[in-house]
């Protein structure tokens, strides 16, 4: 029998606000345990949460970018459960009136398949604290620094049919949220987390099979592998005449398999009710219009613009716009009068090469658009040759060192004095009479050797074009 996999996603994204959702503690990642906490986020009795304005703004902006309708009158609800990562014993979330509903995200998989993923809803809520078990004392340590960091949870309809579609969606989601500036979406720091709901059914069937929910997926790679594993596990169960149990399963990266979590965690009854401490929200038409007007240019729009305005190849524009920081870097260099094609070539070649060699992301790099613009200008003016410019780039990349100072200190400026070049060529001819004779006898190869020798004599600082022309001219005079 042929089977079809049906997948829906629940993605939690930490918002890039400065403060927590209901108190003024910092949201900064890390920090010594329980130092980014106050009576509100540690759930002390008698405290009153007050919503951070920015959270509402970011949630609405994310919803607009995902083509959702906005719930103009919305409120928060209380989700009750006892677990020590939640000191209040409830999470303030949204169940009945989520801020955004009914969105649509067009995706394109690596294989070129295009489809639209429907968004069921997007709601605001608070993050929980972090629990670390200490085996030495056999007790669990609770750190509430993360408790109260604002989250949006984005729930899709079960519209995915394979891992490729899931990855394409997550990449699109990450790029959109980064362009909006509402989240940095760093999976390794947990600011983008994804739960995968998966079931299988005979191909052609319209009914859904029993689904499982997978947690602890910490990278796109883990998500793809977990999907493949879990679909196979469910198909095998059914083909053996067994039944899939609706449960939460934990992905184990090392064992490359999913395992059922305690059944207690599966049987939840959250007893939601309206959150009495947060008054309802009403979003005015003016606010909504303003948020809409503030939507930035997204990756696709930039790609199209770079192709039409700058004549860049589609592939290059895709690479540059994949990370917002890289697109910003490119635009800043162009704004500093760099030729767009040159800037693109440098970014595609040298900048991305350095980033991948160092395992870095563009947004963490020190190297500035001004330095790149300076390098491009020096090459354009004939004061540095391209190869030397690359060496300067490599030297200044890490700390964004001063390009001009480096060139000066290492005497790298191109030799533009025609007399110096001519003198070097004459010396090379005198030292290599056989090569000169070879060339005159028709051996083209000898020409390259003479160029190389001349460049070496000038310590690589001459313009290759000037050297070529000088050698050609002098050979003709012989």
């Amino acid at each position: 029998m042929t089977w079809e996999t049906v997948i829906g996603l629940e993605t939690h994204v930490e918002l890039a606000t400065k403060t927590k959702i209901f108190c003024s503690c910092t949201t900064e990642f890390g920090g010594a345990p329980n130092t980014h906490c106050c009576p509100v986020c540690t759930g002390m009795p008698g405290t009153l949460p007050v919503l951070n304005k920015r959270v509402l703004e970011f949630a609405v902006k994310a919803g607009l970018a995902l083509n959702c309708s906005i719930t103009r009158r919305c409120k928060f609800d209380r989700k009750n459960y006892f677990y020590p990562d939640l000191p209040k014993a409830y999470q303030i979330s949204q169940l009945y009136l989520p801020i955004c509903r009914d969105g649509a995200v067009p995706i394109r998989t690596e294989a070129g398949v295009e489809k639209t993923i429907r968004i069921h809803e997007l709601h605001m809520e608070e993050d929980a604290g972090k629990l670390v078990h200490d085996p030495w004392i056999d007790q669990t340590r609770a750190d509430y620094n993360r408790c109260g960091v604002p989250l949006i949870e984005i729930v899709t309809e079960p519209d995915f049919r394979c891992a490729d579609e899931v990855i394409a969606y997550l990449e699109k989601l990450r790029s959109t949220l980064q362009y909006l500036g509402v989240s940095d979406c760093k999976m390794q720091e947990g600011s983008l987390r994804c739960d995968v709901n998966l079931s299988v059914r005979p191909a052609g069937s319209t009914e859904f099979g029993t689904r499982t929910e997978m947690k602890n997926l910490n990278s796109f790679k883990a998500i793809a592998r977990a999907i493949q594993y879990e679909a196979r596990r469910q198909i095998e169960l059914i083909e053996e005449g067994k039944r899939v149990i609706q449960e939460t399963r934990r992905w184990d990266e090392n064992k490359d398999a999913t395992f059922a979590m305690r059944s207690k965690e599966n049987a939840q009854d959250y007893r939601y009710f309206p959150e009495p401490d947060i008054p309802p929200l009403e979003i005015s038409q003016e606010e909504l219009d303003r948020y809409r007007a503030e939507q930035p240019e997204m990756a696709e729009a930039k790609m199209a613009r770079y192709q039409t305005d700058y004549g860049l190849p589609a592939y290059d524009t895709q690479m540059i716009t994949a990370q917002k920081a890289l697109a910003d870097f490119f635009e800043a260099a162009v704004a500093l009068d760099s030729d767009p094609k040159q800037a693109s070539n440098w970014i595609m070649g040298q900048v991305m090469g350095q980033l991948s060699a160092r395992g870095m992301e563009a947004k963490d790099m020190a190297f500035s658009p001004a330095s790149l613009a300076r390098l491009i200008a020096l090459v354009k003016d004939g004061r540095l040759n391209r190869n030397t410019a690359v060496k300067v780039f490599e030297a200044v990349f890490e700390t964004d060192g001063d390009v001009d100072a480096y060139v000066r200190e290492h005497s790298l400026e191109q030799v533009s004095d025609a007399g110096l070049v001519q003198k070097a060529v004459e010396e090379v001819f005198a030292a290599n009479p056989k090569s000169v004779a070879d060339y005159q006898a028709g051996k083209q190869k000898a020409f390259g050797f003479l160029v190389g020798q001349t460049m070496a004599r000038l310590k690589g600082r001459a313009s290759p074009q000037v050297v070529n022309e000088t050698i050609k001219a002098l050979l003709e005079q012989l």
Partner: protein
Amino acid sequence: MKMTEEMVDYVSALARLKLPEEERARMTGELEQILAYMDVLNALDTSSVEPMSHVFPVKNVMREDVVLPSAGRAALLANAPAPDGEAFLVPRTVE
């Protein structure tokens, strides 16, 4: 609505309460009375009434996204039953 002792057990388990036998019987009766009052409310036609979640006519109470100093850790841990100077200690919960 008829309240059973099983329902009381379920609700008290959710609330992490362990009721002695005599309280269990008393709660069953009291909860049934409370639910009976809900029946009175249910008898009313509310089809044209908007659900109310908050009593006071207050809306959009928000603050600016400006960081203020957090509380001192020692003060936060002061009332915890088992702090270790840095964190709140709780019984093993992580699998």
